[in-house]
């Protein structure tokens, strides 16, 4: 049996249409978009077409899009630029379970002299908007709030926070990397100032991402050198990857609503079947607004790491949390942040579906999950007796 991939929050397979769009730029076509000759002109055109498509997806205008190599780079660029322009003095507000590219950037800036307030999510996996607003100060330089949490899939009250921040003149950075492609994301509806997406989370290639910067909001070069990206990000453009990002954005424009429904059908079938397959399993944050594709599940008395390995050996790829650590297992900071104990966090599994998954794969997965959980409980000395008897 071909392995079944159920870890789409880590990365997604390339859409065949995206691959087709990229192939000429990995083959017969080439050019530096900054060159004057016709090779350069064609490459420039390809990059600008991609920019149009990404801008359209986010409801923005093409000049508002800055291409980067990763979501991490985009998040870092905004934070370090905002801090630098303020002379490394002032205050940041972030949620406590932001992606590491925000958390670690904030920690570095804290060392450099900024103050950082980290707002904790509730046990429902949602950061209360009023808690973020209450943390704002006259010297707050930036608020960072992700649109969807990468581990839990919970959707955060970004529009509410952005409206309040706008009244106080505080810009908002929204890391929407996990959300774009799964739910509708519109820069103006959100009302934020910076919005970040990554191509490889939406069936585009690795190595391409985009930062949307609201018109009128300043961002000066983080990488300096050539004049690319209107001097906001130097470095020769990764033409094939950006063409892929543009195509992936165009596909979502056309199919987005349908995708959301298909993902939710997979997720709902899994969560309904899970009640029969592993009756004592707990799905986190079901009462909160969530991404349609993500189930974060705690299986009491089962070590998540061991279950992940057994499932992988049985042909199903899932995750115990985010894929950004060294590949070893530590309790997820996100799960600790929503108030789970270390043991509960270590018994959790993240299943994230993608549009290429089928309902049949979900059923197969449920069978194997039930089998592997039972086997692990039989073997594991950690399991309380009553859990085995169940």
């Amino acid at each position, binding site marked *: 049996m071909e392995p079944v991939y159920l870890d789409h929050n880590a990365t997604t397979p390339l859409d065949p249409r995206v691959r087709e769009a990229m192939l000429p730029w990995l083959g017969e076509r080439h050019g530096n978009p900054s060159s004057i000759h016709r090779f350069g002109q064609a490459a420039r055109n390809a990059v600008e077409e991609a920019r149009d498509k990404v801008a359209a997806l986010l409801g923005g205008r093409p000049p508002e899009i800055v291409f980067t190599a990763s979501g991490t780079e985009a998040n870092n660029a905004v934070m370090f630029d905002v801090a630098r322009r303020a002379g490394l003095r002032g205050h940041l507000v972030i949620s406590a379970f932001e992606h590491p590219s925000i958390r670690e950037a904030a920690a570095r800036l804290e060392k450099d002299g900024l103050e950082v307030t980290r707002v904790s999510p509730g046990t429902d996996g949602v950061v209360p908007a009023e808690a973020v607003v209450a943390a704002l100060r006259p010297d707050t330089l930036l608020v960072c709030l992700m649109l969807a949490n990468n581990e839990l899939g919970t959707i955060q009250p970004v529009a509410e926070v952005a409206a309040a921040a706008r009244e106080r003149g505080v810009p908002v950075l929204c890391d929407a990397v996990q959300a774009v492609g799964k739910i509708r994301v519109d820069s103006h509806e959100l009302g934020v100032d910076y919005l970040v997406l990554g191509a490889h989370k939406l069936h585009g290639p690795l190595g391409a991402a985009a930062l949307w910067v609201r018109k009128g909001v300043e961002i000066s070069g983080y990488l300096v050198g050539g004049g690319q990206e209107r001097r906001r990000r130097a470095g020769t453009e990764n033409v094939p990857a950006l063409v892929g990002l543009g195509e992936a954005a165009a596909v979502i424009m056309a199919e987005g609503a349908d995708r959301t429904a298909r993902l939710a059908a997979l997720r709902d079938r899994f969560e309904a079947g899970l009640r029969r397959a592993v009756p004592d399993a707990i799905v986190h944050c079901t009462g909160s607004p969530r991404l349609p594709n993500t189930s974060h599940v705690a299986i009491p008395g089962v070590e998540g790491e061991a279950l992940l390995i057994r499932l992988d*050996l049985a042909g199903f790829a899932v995750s115990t949390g985010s894929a950004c650590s060294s590949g070893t297992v530590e309790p997820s900071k996100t799960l600790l942040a929503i108030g789970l104990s270390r043991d509960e966090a270590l018994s959790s599994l993240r299943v994230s579906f993608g549009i290429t998954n089928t309902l049949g794969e979900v059923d197969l997965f449920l069978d194997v999950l039930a089998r592997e959980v039972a*086997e692990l409980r039989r*073997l594991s000395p950690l399991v309380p007796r009553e859990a085995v008897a169940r």
Partner: protein
Amino acid sequence: MTDRDLTAVAMSGGLDSSVTAWLLAREGRPVVGLSMLLWDRSTEAAHGRCCGALDLGDAKRVAQQAGIPHYTLRMDEEFREKVVDPFVGDYLAGRTPSPCVRCNTWIKFDLLLDRARRYGADRIATGHYARILDGPDGPELHTAVDADKDQSYYLFELTREQLAASELPLGGMTKREVRELAREAGLVVAGKGESMEVCFVSGSIRDFVESQVAEAPDRYAAPALAAPAALVDAEGRTLGVGEPYYRYTVGQRKGLGLAAKSPLYVLAIDPAENRVVVGEDRDLFAPGLRGERLHWIGPAPAGPVEATVKIRSRHPGVRALLRPQGGGRVEIDFAEPQRGVTPGQAAVFYEGTRVLGGCWIEGRL
């Protein structure tokens, strides 16, 4: 037992365990590679050490070359508890420990085999140079064919149950053959050198002991960082003042800083009195040793038995009479006096190529 007919290979990222994984995968058997993150000091220059994260990256690459899945298991808490803390504790108690024996028994077989079973693997393979052969009483542990590389000394605490679930494919090969195989297979680790003796210590062992004590003084039973030790002769006369006692090893000659007609050596370490006893080379020879935590791989013998005993890993071995004393204690009479009986080291018993068992050295007879 378990459900998958799967063999787990312990992969350190070094040459030997890499070739082991590749050999098993080549047979077409279901194999999974497991690496242990034992000592995570990301800030230290770790490359080339068996516990370093970079070596674990090499293990992942070899697993891809062999076409097998690979997982890294964080086991640093267990490693500290079972290996590093006793290692430091031994130095503080005036002994010279052999951490690789503990690591091999507790970590590579006990813990890793337990983890492997959880993943559905009922057998474990490692890159040790030693052989497991069938005998009348079950599996037996034997020395490697390549005598220069033999590692059976480090495995004397294994049980028959563990041996029954283990494979050591390199035991019948020479290091040269293993290296040649790695080259033929194009493994990324083919050019790698040998790993160091104590993998978690990157500088001096003495400095390591002091840094560990300074980090957590309450972790160890023995007194922390003692004053300079008195250097005394066998009659108890003070010859000078040295460094703290745990900086010395039995048999050590260099660095005593004492003037004498003939060269002086460390004979014994006495932490309670903070004394280091020194004497001449001939005083280092002992007629036998007292051992504790006696272990037999097969059934324990009813009375005294003869065997060849190695009192450290590179010792050539000496014929001896083993006299079990009960309570896990044993007294051993050597056929001829041996130099450097060192408390904290293992004494391992052999009959021909077969490892009978061993004990931990308490002192000389």
